[in-house]
């Protein structure tokens, strides 16, 4: 629904500059984690296999292989708990959701690297 008031509320809940990354990118997601009173940063790195939602509610999904087991984590793009998202490598993709990676094992998981012009 588009409405001036809703837009304003949503805007206030978005990061001023949305982190820039694409589907197929290999990223490091730096998340702030509270342990008692101490805050530390945990990094989750993997391939972005999809984005969903829009505006302040947008989410993105990151997939990686841990000890031979596929692990997927979904993050809100605009969450204040996400410190930063670093793009390590860009992959060539022809679709918006890379669910086909779930069926692939070993070397086949790799995506062709995209050369940035």
């Amino acid at each position: 629904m588009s409405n001036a008031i809703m837009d304003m509320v949503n805007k206030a809940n978005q990061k001023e500059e949305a982190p820039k990354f694409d589907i197929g990118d290999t990223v490091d997601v730096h998340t702030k984690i509270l342990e008692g009173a101490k805050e530390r940063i945990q990094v989750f790195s993997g391939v972005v296999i999809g984005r969903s939602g829009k505006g302040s509610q947008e989410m993105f999904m990151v997939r990686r292989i841990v000890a031979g087991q596929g692990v997927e984590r979904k993050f809100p793009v605009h969450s204040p708990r996400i410190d930063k998202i670093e793009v390590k490598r860009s992959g060539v993709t022809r679709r918006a959701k890379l669910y086909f990676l779930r069926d692939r094992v070993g070397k086949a998981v790799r995506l062709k690297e995209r050369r940035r012009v």
Partner: protein
Amino acid sequence: MLPSILGRKVGMTQVFLEDGTAVPVTVVQAGPCHVLQIRSKERDGYEAVQLGFEDKPRRLAARSERGQVAALDSKRSKNRAAAGVEVAAKADCEPQRFVREFRGPVNATVGDALTVEQFTDVKNVDVTGTSKGRGFSGVMKRHNFAGQRASHGVKKCHRHAGGTGMSASPSRVFKGKKMPGQYGNSRVTTRNLQVVSIDTENNLLLVRGAVPGPNGGFVSIRQTNKV
């Protein structure tokens, strides 16, 4: 008087709290509300404050609605003034679209404008509105009945209620048996909703969770009396 205000439901969204948790909220545009009348024990038999929300164009307002908010000049008012009858205090504002009373001891005067600022220290609120009308609905939608099976001999009765009573004794259906009928479009109060934030600049109130009625529907909000 508990903090109370009238408003309009704008819509639902999601906001992040300071600690990063995402919370579902309903945005309500509330106030400023003029105090139109004060009900008192001596005059009306109960104590309450009458609030109005949103100006109504004068061309759409009946003369009685204009007379409710401002003193009008008429033959009758002149006659009454001549007879020494005091005119009740008027808010002196535009006719209002949505007028509701809030009961309880009053600490306001006619003409005051109440804003969302009252809710600065309020943790939880009750929100009353008119729920979305669903028309004549069956028991599955209206009363959450389970319906009947899709197969195993069930014919044309998949969304029916099943039996409605016993046999020769009592030979009747008890009163209050849940059956199909009009569902929705009724006054509904959702209690104990947490106030997530207020925006005094834009007269917004963000309440955790859902609020009765469609987007754009009128709602009345007051501090909860639930412990």
